[in-house]
């Protein structure tokens, strides 16, 4: 690097031959756009700006689309194709129709886990919400069929799906606590089931409700409403009146079925009889085949009550 380069690098403006500069300036002064062209172009520019702002003209896009710019539909299609590839086996197809307690129900949950792993991070909470909805469908399907003996396994799956959704929707630090995540539709559906369930199965549903963070008044009012309308509801969420509980069925040791006049606790009682403010969903039983990380079982209930 020469001395001149070093001086220029430091911001020193070297004297430039004024005669040459004047000649260049004189030449440039005469370069002017045609006034008509200039006026016409001004109108075009303003019109184009307005059209772009109104969305009539797309803004320029880079040639290489960033990954995040894939539309929701595009991502859905990509994702659906991956899912199809994963589940396009006879076993996979059959597993999609399985219910808790079925042999293939574990396969169904595994496929969902794979789907969750493949999905982009920002879609996972949506998938978890879909999974929870599906678990509730399964509970309702079992209740409709009067197969209450499988409700325990189904509730396990509901609680696990709730825990996963809460974990995905809760910010890592300083955000809402799990109990603050709102799932009003979920609570409605569970209280509808609670109103229809035999007494022996109510503790299981209460467990799912407690894990969802529903307030006692919410559960209470919903339950009264659902009880009053029992037998009148039609359609997907209609649950038939369950047969009376058998004499040998025992209520859960940890959670008593709540009488209609008694407020339902939001949280699960601990061994000491106090309510745990942040209920942790119980651990899955081994029967459903879900091998995901399981929340600890600290509410005094094992893999299911003795029926």
């Amino acid at each position, binding site marked *: 690097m020469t001395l001149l380069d070093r001086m220029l690098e430091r911001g020193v403006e070297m004297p*430039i031959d004024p005669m040459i500069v004047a000649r260049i300036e004189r030449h*440039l002064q005469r*370069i002017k756009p045609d006034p008509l062209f200039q006026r016409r172009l001004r109108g075009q520019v303003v019109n184009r700006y307005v059209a772009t702002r109104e969305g009539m003209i797309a803004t320029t896009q880079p040639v290489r689309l960033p990954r995040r710019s894939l539309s929701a539909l595009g991502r859905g299609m990509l994702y659906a194709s991956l899912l199809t590839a994963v589940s396009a086996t006879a076993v996979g197809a059959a597993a999609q129709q399985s219910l808790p307690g079925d042999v293939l129900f574990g396969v169904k949950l595994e496929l969902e886990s794979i789907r969750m792993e493949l999905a982009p991070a920002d879609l996972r909470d949506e998938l978890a919400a879909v999974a929870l909805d599906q678990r509730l469908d399964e509970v309702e399907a079992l209740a409709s069929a009067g197969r209450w003996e499988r409700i325990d396994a189904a509730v396990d799956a509901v609680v696990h799906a709730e825990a996963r959704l809460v974990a995905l929707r809760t910010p890592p630090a300083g955000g809402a606590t799990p109990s603050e995540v709102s799932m009003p539709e979920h609570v409605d559906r569970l209280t509808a089931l609670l109103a229809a369930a035999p007494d022996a199965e109510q503790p299981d549903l209460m467990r799912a409700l407690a894990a969802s963070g529903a307030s006692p008044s919410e559960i209470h009012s919903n339950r009264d409403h659902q009880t009053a309308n029992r037998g009148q509801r039609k359609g997907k969420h209609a649950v038939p009146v369950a047969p009376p509980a058998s004499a040998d069925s025992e209520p859960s040791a940890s959670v008593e079925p709540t009488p209609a006049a008694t407020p339902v606790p939001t949280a699960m009682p601990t061994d000491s009889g106090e309510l745990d403010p942040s209920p942790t969903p119980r651990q899955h039983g081994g029967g459903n085949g879900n091998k995901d990380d399981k929340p600890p079982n600290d509410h005094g209930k094992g893999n299911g009550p003795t029926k």
Partner: protein
Amino acid sequence: MSAFVAQALREAERRRATAPAAEPHALDGLTVDQLAEAAIAGDVEAVGRLYDALVLPIYRYVAVRVHRPEDAEDLTQLVFERIVSSLPRYRSRGRPFEAWAFRIARNAVIDHVRRDRAHEPLSDRHDTAHDETPDRLTVRGEEVRELRSAIRRLTPDQQEALALRFAAGLTAEEAAQVMGKRAGTVRGLTFRGIASLRRLLLPEEEQVAR
């Protein structure tokens, strides 16, 4: 020019001269960067003002790089289309708006030159004015041809630096951002480019005398 057109032009000039001064506008006195911010925020008037501020330097920059007036107009139009289309995605990040706009212009010129390698002979149509006598036009045309011929003998980077600094009116720092070089490098290119022009344009005895 017909007498009718000449009379109409004179009348228009007279009306402009006697027209009352326009009311001061909120955008008056804003810098190009401030106009760009207003335009991004949705101010249509700011877009017009931005165009007014940039059209001449962009046209001149393009014109000295492509030689033909028709190409200069086409490219100027293309540059403004791209500026308007890309405006919603513009983020300042401490870079002047003019540097961003001239980068678009530079890319458009480079694309054009690549497509149109075979340049026509130098045209002095940029440099004609309606009020010059034929003699003056001849002298002026000769001077311009010499200057253009000399500029073409500079290195591409020197030509680019001179076009950005003199035709576009950018500072060394702004030109450096457009060219993707350091400001000191642009100063060096400018200095050496002018020195080369002096050698090429001034007679040898005049160079010695200076």
